[in-house]
């Protein structure tokens, strides 16, 4: 059974349509890369999956169950976690408070009945950098730290699927490197990750399959090796 | 968007027609000349909002007066009908209603108003429309003097008169240092000027140590109170009233203001303002007011009895004024023998009306009535559960009104 399945997704801002029949699938414990130029529709796709944009047409299934049109908070509770493009951490709140916003309240946590749930301890294990900054105002963190906080915050909600939007944007190479390892660990822990990226190599090192978007349409889909092998596609759409 | 269908082009004219047609909902214009038709009096007053505590009893008394007059056969053999309009305490609303009453309903006489600003506005309208306006409540002395004209008359004793009554008494006190606080609008300021000008004449050594003019409806006076007390006045004069006065008393009492200074309050002995305070009403204040509970002439006792029977409550100052206003209008119509404005005005000049508090007269040269006011000292009455006036005296208007020459001087200055 597919973890996440998107069929024929169409989205419009007002009168101008931006997504045209996007379909994609992600299996359990798999990283799927969403590639394409700036403005190709990657972020829009993730936002639409998260219920943050009205969907004109199409369907979204989570673990085989239809979740199209559900409000974001329900989707989150059903197991979709969203890490936005520009991190959108709560600047005025401390690191701890940011994590608390993402954390499941006690009663819901017990309802989900997960033993291996994320908590402060486990999050700090993954991002040791954050553990020293617990009481710092999030607005004072560096870009890399903010990115980690943003991911950690979403993890606190125990997602099964993680929508990661441009996590490496604006990060120093060292940070990118650390992030790559951390995202790998998340996959190893069993999370399904939909990774939207401009850094193609970074994404392809992590992902097992990739979708290539161009002007709101999928122009290529296949395994990562397949994509790397297809020089025409690489030249035309990825400039690598 | 699809283009609108052809029918659309009829929409604007159709809509316009509908709107103009619905104007007829405004009610008919009075068809003139039917003998048994009621005589229409247009009455504009502040029936909603902060003044309504005053105007509600006023309206009750007017209705009572109309019933009594009509029971006696009305005026000129026709019943009197009063059309009430709410000016919402706003002069522009007052003018709007005056226009409607005069142009549309063709009333014989305009009457009413509470706020000085509304009174002045309606008076200006009446001047231009050449319609008799019997101003019931607005107290600014300007109304009949500086801005007086042929078509305006006033029932109540104005700020000048009431201020003067208080000044006569205050001059006998040893105090010299005065502070004033009043609402920042026409009445609030005029109520001080009338008092202060007279007091300085009588007692040249007095000095004003603090003056505060918070906005009408301010509600929060603590800083004003400490400011006043800091100036160490011997007397505090106030023209606050209504909700402002209640708030002021509550806030000033624990500061000891009423112990630390002698307080003079214009109108504050009126039941409208003293009764809501219950047993927290300040004692020993010098006030003007209306001690309905203690005026025991047969005519007045009878008035109180009839009013109580009708409404279940004792009369307020507003009730008395409303009642007298209607009596005056009926008397003017009878004397004129006509509804023509010019004849009505002439009839109203030097008209004498007998009222529950004795006869009053509308002075021919300035159109101010000689209705007076009661001056006295406040005291809590545990039996009644609210403050009353003691040691009171009725001061008839004649005692404090200026003579003809002085009025003419003021009128010239006002033009």
């Amino acid at each position, binding site marked *: 059974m597919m973890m996440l399945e998107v069929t024929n997704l169409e989205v419009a801002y007002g009168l101008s349509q931006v997504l045209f029949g996007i379909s994609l699938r992600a299996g359990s414990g798999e990283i799927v890369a969403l590639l394409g130029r700036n403005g190709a529709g990657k972020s829009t796709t993730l936002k639409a999956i998260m219920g943050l944009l009205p969907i004109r047409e199409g369907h979204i299934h989570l673990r085989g169950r239809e979740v199209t049109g559900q409000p974001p908070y329900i989707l989150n509770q059903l197991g979709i976690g969203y890490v936005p493009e520009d991190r959108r951490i709560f600047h005025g709140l401390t690191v701890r408070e940011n994590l608390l916003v993402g954390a499941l309240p006690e009663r819901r946590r017990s309802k989900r009945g997960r033993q291996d749930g994320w908590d402060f301890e486990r999050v700090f294990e993954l991002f040791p950098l954050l553990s020293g900054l617990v009481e710092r105002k999030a607005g004072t963190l560096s870009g890399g730290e903010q990115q980690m906080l943003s991911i950690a915050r979403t993890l606190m909600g125990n997602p099964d699927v993680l929508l990661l939007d441009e996590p490496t944007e604006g990060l120093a190479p060292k940070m990118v490197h650390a992030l790559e390892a951390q995202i790998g660990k998340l996959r190893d822990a069993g999370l399904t990750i939909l990774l939207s990226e401009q850094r193609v190599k970074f994404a392809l090192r992590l992902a097992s399959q990739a979708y290539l978007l161009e002007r709101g349409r999928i122009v290529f889909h296949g395994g990562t090796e397949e994509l790397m092998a297809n020089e025409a596609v690489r030249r035309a759409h990825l400039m690598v | 968007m699809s283009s609108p269908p052809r029918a659309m082009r009829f929409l604007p004219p159709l809509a316009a027609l509908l709107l103009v047609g619905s104007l007829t909902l405004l009610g008919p214009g009075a068809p003139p000349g039917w003998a048994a038709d009621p005589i229409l009096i247009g009455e504009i007053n502040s029936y*909603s909002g902060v003044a309504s505590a005053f105007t509600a009893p006023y309206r009750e008394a007017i209705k009572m007066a109309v019933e009594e007059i009509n029971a006696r056969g009305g005026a000129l053999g026709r019943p009197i009908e009063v059309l009430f309009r709410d000016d919402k305490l706003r002069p522009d609303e007052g*003018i709007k209603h005056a226009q409607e009453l005069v142009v549309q309903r063709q009333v014989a006489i305009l009457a009413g108003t509470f706020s000085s*600003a509304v009174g002045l506005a309606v008076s200006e309208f009446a001047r231009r429309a050449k319609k008799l306006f019997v101003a019931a409540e607005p107290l600014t002395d300007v109304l009949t003097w500086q801005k007086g004209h042929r078509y305006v008359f006033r029932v109540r004793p104005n700020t000048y008169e009431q201020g003067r009554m208080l000044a006569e008494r205050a001059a006998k006190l040893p105090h010299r240092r005065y502070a004033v606080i009043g609402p920042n609008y026409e009445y609030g300021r005029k109520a001080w000027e009338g008092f202060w000008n007279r007091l300085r004449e009588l007692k040249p050594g007095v000095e004003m140590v603090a003056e505060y003019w918070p906005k009408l409806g301010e509600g*929060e006076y603590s800083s004003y109170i*400490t400011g006043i007390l800091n100036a160490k006045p011997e007397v505090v004069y106030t023209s606050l009233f209504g909700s402002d006065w209640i708030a002021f008393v509550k806030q000033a009492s624990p500061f000891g203001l009423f112990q630390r200074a002698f307080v003079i309050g214009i109108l504050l002995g009126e039941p409208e303002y003293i009764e809501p305070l219950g047993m927290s009403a300040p004692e020993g204040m010098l006030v003007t007011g209306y001690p309905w509970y203690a005026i025991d002439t047969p005519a007045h006792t009878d008035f109180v009895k009839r009013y109580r029977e009708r409404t279940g409550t004792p009369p307020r100052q507003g009730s008395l004024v409303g009642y007298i206003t209607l009596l005056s209008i009926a008397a003017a119509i009878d004397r004129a023998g006509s509804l023509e404005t010019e004849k009505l005005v002439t009839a109203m000049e030097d008209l004498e009306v007998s009222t529950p508090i004795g006869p009053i007269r509308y002075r021919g040269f300035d159109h101010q009535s000689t209705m007076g006011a009661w001056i006295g000292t406040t005291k809590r009455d545990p039996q009644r559960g609210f403050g009353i006036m003691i040691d009171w005296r009725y001061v008839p208007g004649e005692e404090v009104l200026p003579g003809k020459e002085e009025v003419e001087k003021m009128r010239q200055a006002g033009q």
Partner: protein
Amino acid sequence: MLHLILFQGLTGLANAMFLFLTAAGLSLIFGVTRIINFAHGSFYMLAAYLTYSLGTLLAGTPWQLGVTLAVAPLAVALLGGLIEVILLRRVYAAPTLHQLLLTFALVLIFGDAVEYVWGEANLSVPIPALLGGSVRLLGQPFPLYYLGVIGFGPLMALLLWLLMTRTRWGILVRAATQDREMVTALGVNQKRLFTTVFIVGSWLAGFAGMLAAPMISVNPGMDTTVIVEAFVVAVIGGMGSFSGSLLGALLIGELKAFGILFFPRISLVLVFALMAVVLVARPWGLLGKEEPLTAEGGELAALQHEGLPVRWRPWLAVFLGLLLLPAVLPPFYLIILTELFAAALLAASLNFLLGYGGMISFGHAAYFGLGSYGAGLLVVRAGVGMPLAFLLAPLLALAGAALYGALSVRLSSIYFAMLTLAFAQITYTIAYQWYDLTGGDNGLLGIWPHPTLADPSVYYWFALGVTTLCLVALFCVVRSPFGQSLRAIRDNPLRAQSLGISTRLHQWIAFLMAGLFAGIAGALFVFQKGSTFPDYLSVEKSIEPLVMILLGGIGSLSGPLVGAAVFKLLDTIITQYTQYWQALLGGILVLLVVNFPRGIVGYVLQLWSRRGPTDDPDAAAPRA
């Protein structure tokens, strides 16, 4: 001197605590939901009335104080929650204008409801025995109750601070104040959060009302007094910031306490002047967070029917019909219609600014009033005759618009609305307090038209002509390249900027034009009425044209005209039949906002264009 500073300082402090409690709730609600809840003052008032009723009900019983403390704010809090669930929830995705008018409608309804239940009389709540009397400070009595309030304020502030930092709810609220969409993406049920925020915010209003009740007179007018002050405090401190509300309250409280000593005559202006200065320098308030430029106009545009071909023949028919009316209608109808022309022109000028410029002015009465005062001052103070005065009067409005516009147009949506409101209030206060020039509340009387225009039907023709000319001029501007640029700015200011359009200059010029035409409307009006008053500059007068536009429909040529006509008729007719005209108007507003956001014209057009693609705003999923 020490005595003076201590006493003024303490009374200012006590006042600040009342202000803080009221403003904090207003600010909290705005921070999370982006709704300026004008009804906040109504909740304050309701709690004061409940305190009164509970007091009379339980007088003398030992649990009076305890029950009142528990029940009065809680009842109001639940009412706030109920209102949120029933009404406000429906308008979170609506344009700011609709939200503002909805809460304003609630003010009207609650105002009349309170009058209906408790009557108009001033009620008095006794001070609880525990805090009665006074204590001596520097040898002079000071009310114990105020000391209690001064002590209670910081305690409440501390409790609030704990609530906001130590509870999950508080953390969620603070997070939502920064980014509510992200909070929902993290699994928080926004609806529930908003409802609880309304409950807590209303509870604060209720608590403040209960606390204030023993020291004031409880009456139906107290809601507006308190909302204006709370609003000023919250704006100065920064909407959405608790510490900002505290700072704003302290500033205003002390400014008033000391201001009356040193500037007794202009103390009223001081408060609004401070607000204007803060808004000009830091639009988001002293401790508020800066907000990005938003394309508010896009939402407004969604409610409009633009690009319809305008058929001039029907309009010509209307014009000719109106021209002939004096032959058949009695003079009073002509007077009403003349008033209507002025109102329609005022609404059209605001619609130009709002519908096409995307700028929601909450102080448009300022320019109407300046036009009428311009005429009044010229006639009464300078002795200028009517024709010249009529021509020059709108220039005063133009000058006012030039100044205020220059300071306002840089702000977006809600902050623009607040600043225009502040400027209108300043203008109002000046007109009210500058007794020697403006006549104060007496206004200026005797502003009559030239004798040739004195007859109602002649003045009617004059007003019809002037109004028609102005409407045609406005129409031409809308259709001109300037109008197109203006709409581009409204729909997407950032894109317009990148296209090289000077957005501020365009908006400023639009502001000037709207001000000028509002001024002409004011001059038309004043010569018919013969007088001008500060009321022409009041908040109510600013809201009237907004209601007209909403009633008729935003951004179409005929919308404001139809709206003005219907509004005027309702106003004239309703007031003759019921005392509760305010509640009725409020009810109509609620109905419009919730069910007919496009107004009458929009609704009719929608009925007709059913076959076209639906772009019903309600069908779109709400913005988070």
